[in-house]
């Protein structure tokens, strides 16, 4: 389980995203913190620094 998201941390993230939320929305958003953390954990597999993301691309004939 992640540390509970503090009001200060949430404020920083929302400010960074440019979102203005009501207090009710902020409270609602905090309720999914565990679910979101579980998702983030699932995409972090043991992998070396060389692992490429899916959208790395090669040039096609059209690019040349």
């Amino acid at each position, binding site marked *: 389980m992640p540390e509970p998201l503090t009001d200060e941390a949430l404020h920083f993230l929302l400010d960074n995203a440019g979102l203005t939320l009501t207090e009710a929305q902020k409270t609602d958003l905090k309720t999914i*913190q565990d679910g*979101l953390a579980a998702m983030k954990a*699932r*995409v972090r597999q043991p992998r070396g620094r060389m692992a490429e*993301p899916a959208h790395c691309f090669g040039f096609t004939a059209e690019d040349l």
Partner: protein
Amino acid sequence: MAIPTLAEAAALIAAKKLSPVELTQACLDRMHRMDGTLHAFIHPTEARALADARLAEAAIMKHGPIGPLHGIPMGLKDIVDTAGIPTTCQSRLLEGNIPTADATCATKLAAAGTVLMGKLTTHEFADGGPSFDVLAPPARNPWNPDHFTAGSSSGTGAAVASGMILCGIGTDTGGSIRGPAALCGIAGIKPTYGLVSRAGVAPAAFSLDTIGPMAWTAEDCALMLQVLAGYDPKDPAGADRPVPDYSALLGRSLRGMRIGLIRHFHETDAPVSAPELAAIDNAVAVYRDMGATISEVTLAPMQDWHACGSLISMVERATAYEEWARTRLDGFGERVQRRLMLGALVSGVDYVQAVRRRRELRDQLRDAMRGLDAVLTAAAPGEAPTMDAIPRWDVFDRPSFTIPFNVAGYPAMSICAGFGPQGLPLSLQIVGKPFQEATVFQIADAFEKATAFRGQRPAMV
């Protein structure tokens, strides 16, 4: 008039035994009778439909049909741009928006001689329904209007199932074609990523978005995909490949076909209802009887696929709608507001880790499908839930059976696999290799023709 399939109507029209005007009028009559309950249409275009039908009829009488879609009543999800016709994405933010140009898919369907019945209800910006605080009410399930259609191509699912149209456009970012197809008891295919142009269609998540056909049968979807597929330079993800004959394999024997079953998805990762499990087991038995070989396939847990697709979707959606989220967040309905808020909590590193996981998962599916023609699993957990049973944060409620194949980009289709104890449809998902839609249609069509489920329409029809 009984509701024909698209293929049946096309044959009758070609033989001059069915008038496109009469067919369109029968669809309009159903719309007048049922759409007050179903809300499948957000912008019906009755005058346009009758004009299209008269034009089609005159041309067919003179020269014969230009193809199987000539004179066929269809609808477009309301995130598809249509010149001179409102395109609102079901959002108050786009109320009154009238595009000046058609999306590529709309252009292609018009050029094929279809009859445009109207714009179809969607979840707001193809996300997050059912919502009662957006531009129009959500679509309802024709099998029981107290129940959900799934989404986001909710209006297309309801309109096809009730015979208000014979086919329609859906879009699918995480299951928005296959979900409504499953719960409304119709056929719907998410094509291979890049096969159908997304140009002129509102984005949900760029790297997951696909456009595809929804109709009563797999055969109908094949006819529709024939018109939709093909390279479009206006779509940066467009695949520049020749378009095969998607009906070429219909009716061919499945003997010797090798089909995988991702049993752990629907039995242990996210167990489906007992009736749904029985429907999948029945489909497997039907395919075995036809001579197909069934083998079990093991992939990463469905939760991994769901997490990967969901994180990517959250960020790409928040990116697409960032400007409005910053300045007019309360213009969205509550459900979409919540989805957009999530973007603030996913970092750039989280996103790229998800995209790295995506490559691993795609590779895994590719390896698992070596030596197989297709794989099967559930498309939905069971019969449609009631409209009030959808959780506020549904993305965290249970993993999706459909999003794995958006993550992989593979073609995937939902077909009706029977009916549950509430009389609502059950479903089956068939997944093919990239650009092998013809094989998916072959497998789907074989099941539909070997079973009686396509003979049953909702009671209200």
